């Protein structure tokens, strides 16, 4: 279980997180929705210790990981996989090396076994025959999928997905939704996803949380989101430019 307690973060004068409270249950997929620039990526980066909060705590199985350093942080991160919004592939490495890096670094598995795992993960995200290609030669959607394969390569307990379906065609997007659901059902992975894709959010989520003005203003199941009267949530999921949330 991950408990985010009263998390605050500003960059200079820009108050991004203003007291975020959110509990993520084990074995569930929690999706965070919210406006562009609303702090979703920043929140994910806190959970894996890439960004330190100004105040507040993040408890994983009861331990405050915002205090973790060095060895403890390294150990913690091996239990996580993260898909970056920008994919963040290593452009000096091939696709195969990108996906296999964690395995080569942290396990003593023989080389042919690592190759096997990498191929399996690439197949899971629907990629074949790109093992020896450098990321610069891939399309945006392919990069995203390589990033996803890299995130799941070590069979993590927790996966953080930052916009897993953005930039994919609808069919591939649905295949990724299905993959996220499978990770949960078959491997009991706990996931936190960030997305603008409401259809995807409804499909993959046990619970959906909405971040607005630096706070979580709503948490509920997809059904509760669909039937809520909360005007802010309604405006967001219906995608209306007029309402409480100002478009510009």
């Amino acid at each position, binding site marked *: 279980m991950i408990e985010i307690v009263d998390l605050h973060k500003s960059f200079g004068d820009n108050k991004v997180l203003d007291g975020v409270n959110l509990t993520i249950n084990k074995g569930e997929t929690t999706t965070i929705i919210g406006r562009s620039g609303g702090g979703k990526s920043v929140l994910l980066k806190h959970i894996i210790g*890439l960004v330190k909060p100004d105040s507040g705590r993040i408890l994983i199985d009861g331990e405050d990981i915002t205090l973790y350093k060095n060895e403890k942080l390294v150990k913690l991160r091996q239990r996580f996989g993260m898909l970056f919004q*920008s994919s963040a592939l290593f452009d000096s490495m091939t696709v195969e090396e990108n996906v296999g*890096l964690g395995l080569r*670094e942290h396990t003593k598995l023989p080389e042919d076994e690592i190759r096997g795992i990498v191929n399996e993960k690439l197949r899971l995200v629907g990629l074949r025959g790109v093992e020896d290609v450098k990321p610069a030669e891939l399309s945006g959607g392919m990069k995203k999928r390589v990033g996803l394969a890299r995130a799941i390569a070590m069979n993590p307990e927790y996966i953080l997905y930052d916009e897993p379906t953005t930039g994919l065609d609808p069919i591939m997007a649905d295949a990724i939704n299905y993959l996220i659901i499978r990770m949960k059902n078959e491997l009991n992975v706990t996931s936190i996803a960030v997305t603008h894709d409401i259809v995807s959010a409804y499909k993959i989520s046990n619970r959906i949380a909405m971040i607005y003005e630096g706070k979580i203003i709503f948490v509920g199941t997809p059904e509760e989101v669909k039937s809520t009267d909360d005007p802010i949530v309604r405006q967001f999921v219906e995608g209306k430019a007029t309402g409480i949330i100002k478009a510009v």
Partner: protein
Amino acid sequence: MGMGLVSYIGSKALGFFTDVGGVAILLKAIVFNLPRLFKNFHLTVEQMVFIGVNSLPLIIFVSIFTGAVSSVQAAYQFHNYVPMRYLGTAVGKAVVIELGPVLTALVVAGRVGAAIAAELGTMKVTEQIDALETLAIDPIHYLVVPRFISGITMLPILVLFSDLVAILGALVVAVVFVDVSAHTFLSGLKMFFHLSDLFAGLFKAFIFGGIIATIGCYQGFKTTGGAEGVGTSTTKAVVISSVLILVADYVIASFLFG
């Protein structure tokens, strides 16, 4: 206006001390990561090839002309005052103590320091450094240490080549244009040659290599703001390491020869 100036100087000074502190922290992290150097040693080998082997053609080219010009200039200044049998002495000392290390370091700062800052800067702004961290890989271990080790080992080796080639260049010019025989030049070279001079030059190269790699990495890691930020970091890496090389050269010289 007066306050504006004061706060301008204040903020510059603050930036300066932040950078000094940042570099110190980076150096400390490098030292703490040295025990794990041989894990992923292939990365260090790659950097050694890039910093050392690939710089060699440029260093050789620069050194030939450095030697040649120092021969011509020394001969001109000796004319009618100093016997030409000291030509080899003067050129040899100048090359080994000063010209070889400093010019090699400045050339490498331009070529390698810039490349390090640009590569790490790009990795920073495209979140590749964050991605490394999420894979539980320490960027200091994975990116900085290989560059640092290559810098401090390859610079002395490059300087050895530079010294040799520069002296050869000087010899050729002496024989062909100044009319000093090879025998005279070489015996002048040997006459006051101290091994300690050579080691002083190599020690400088070791320090300069550390400066180039550390400043390149520091500027790379500090990069923000996309492609423009990468450009700024690259320029800064070259300018700052060049200045530091000259300052360090003076400091080392005053300790060793002062």
